[in-house]
């Protein structure tokens, strides 16, 4: 329990540092040396559609990236896949709506949905405020864990986002 919370805090901190670093690249080197989350990051995968997935004991926790939430704007309505649904790689697995538009969430992994994050249904803003942590969307029991291998790691995803600007 304690490690879980600490891990999450570390993750959040690393994310914040990384995000700040993007804005001020000249201090990025310093921040990198104090970032302790290299091991945690190794488990996070990214898709070209801007979803992320964390692998933990055969389950995948899915959310959207900071880039995605920024492009989407403030989320005001969330529809998650129902628990027990079998989702297929790249299949539609939820909807996020801002005042301006609706966008689909595609699952980066196949399997059975085992949990949804009710906190974001009640408070969709969490997706904007904490996309990598409190704003996660759903968990999938991975039926084909090898799918993760086709996804990007954090640095590859970062490079990918740079090509989009």
């Amino acid at each position, binding site marked *: 329990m304690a490690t879980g919370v600490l891990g999450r805090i570390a993750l959040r901190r690393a994310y914040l540092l990384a995000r700040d670093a993007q804005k001020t690249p000249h201090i990025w080197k310093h921040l990198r040396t104090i970032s302790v989350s290299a091991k945690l990051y190794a488990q996070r995968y990214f898709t070209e559609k801007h979803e992320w997935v964390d692998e933990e004991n055969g389950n995948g926790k899915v959310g959207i990236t900071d880039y995605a939430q920024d492009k989407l704007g*403030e989320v005001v309505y969330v529809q998650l896949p129902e628990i027990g649904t079998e989702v297929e790689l790249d299949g539609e697995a939820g909807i996020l*709506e801002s*005042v301006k538009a609706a966008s689909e969430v595609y699952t980066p992994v196949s399997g059975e949905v085992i949990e949804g994050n009710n906190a974001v249904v009640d408070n969709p803003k969490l997706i904007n405020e904490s996309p990598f942590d409190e704003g996660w969307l759903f968990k999938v029991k991975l039926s084909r864990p090898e799918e993760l291998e086709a996804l990007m790691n954090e640095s590859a995803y970062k490079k990918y986002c740079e090509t989009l600007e």
Partner: protein
Amino acid sequence: MFSKVLRLKNSLISNQRHIRKFCKSQTHLDLKRTCLYDFHVHNEGKMVPFAGWEMPVQYKAGITTEHLHVRSDAGLFDVSHMLQTKITGEDGTKFIESMTVADVDGLKENQGTLSVFTNDSGGILDDLIINKTTDGYLYVVSNAGCAEKDLKNMLTQAELFRYAGGDVEVEIICNGLLALQGPSAGKVMQDAVDFDMNTLPFMTNRQCSVYGISDCRVTRCGYTGEDGVEISVPSDKSVELAIRLMNSKEGKVKLIGLGARDSLRLEAGLCLYGNDIDETTSPVEAALMWTIGKRRRQDGDFPGAEIILEQIKQKPKRKRVGVISEGPPARGGTKIYNESGTVQIGELTSGCPSPSLKKNVSMGYVETAFSKVGTSVQLEVRKKMVQATVSKMPFLKCNYFTG
């Protein structure tokens, strides 16, 4: 901080009449930029293509925050992309009446009205505001998305008018256009002008100086349902005016993007041309019958009059209504069904989650039998039926200053 921007703009706009040409962007999309483009970028506006222009869809605060700020204080919109025209000549009134449904002759000095250009089949070519001025011309504002079409129509019609011996000229006004909207707008403006703002009620206009910037035209109108003004300002002074307004001590004036402009106008029940009205909808179906002047109905001398007057008599087959729902937001294109969900009775033309009401507001066309306020209907959102109710528009109380 902004002097650089101002200098740059001054050099670009040495000849104001050609501003539109000079302001074209360098991108391959060939989007036009308003005189406030650099100002938006400087203020971290998220620029997107809109009706051939590069416009801010939102700023850092985001659509919801911007929306609520306009409802509680004051917001500043760049609407310089809209088409501003000046109609001069003795027959100016006759000319504009020949293309629209408005009773322009019946307007008081310095008064304006919402109107529509109609085609021969009674459809709406564009909506526009026609203002009578005391300066010997009509000041007309119409949509950016229809600018080319409107201009072509007006210029052709003017040519015909002159051929028949009429006296009319149509000129583009290459000014910037800033909209200041919100409950603080009146106070902010009072500090900026040297006349009593109470003498400028809703839908009236006045040529004046604003913060000492001469040759501005202030019209008390807007597209949000709030009190406010639109200020036509010489383009080389637009940035200066925007900065002065944002520094006002009479209200917290914040920049607002097109995103919030859309949700604000929807809450106010106002149409967006191309979504809620177009060449296939008549002013009667669009619930814009009130724009057709009494005299104009009697004379029946506007394009499409025969069809439109017949619709008034017989009642139209469909009508534009407001719809409120909860749950998943319903957007334009959503099908509307009867209460039992068995028969389709219409379609939404625009809709969004309302930041003020925390419900989904939308508008669309339904068969006239279902257009009564309070009628229960169903909306098909992503293959699921959602309960909804035909509702009165505006969805919230408008705060126009009527004097």
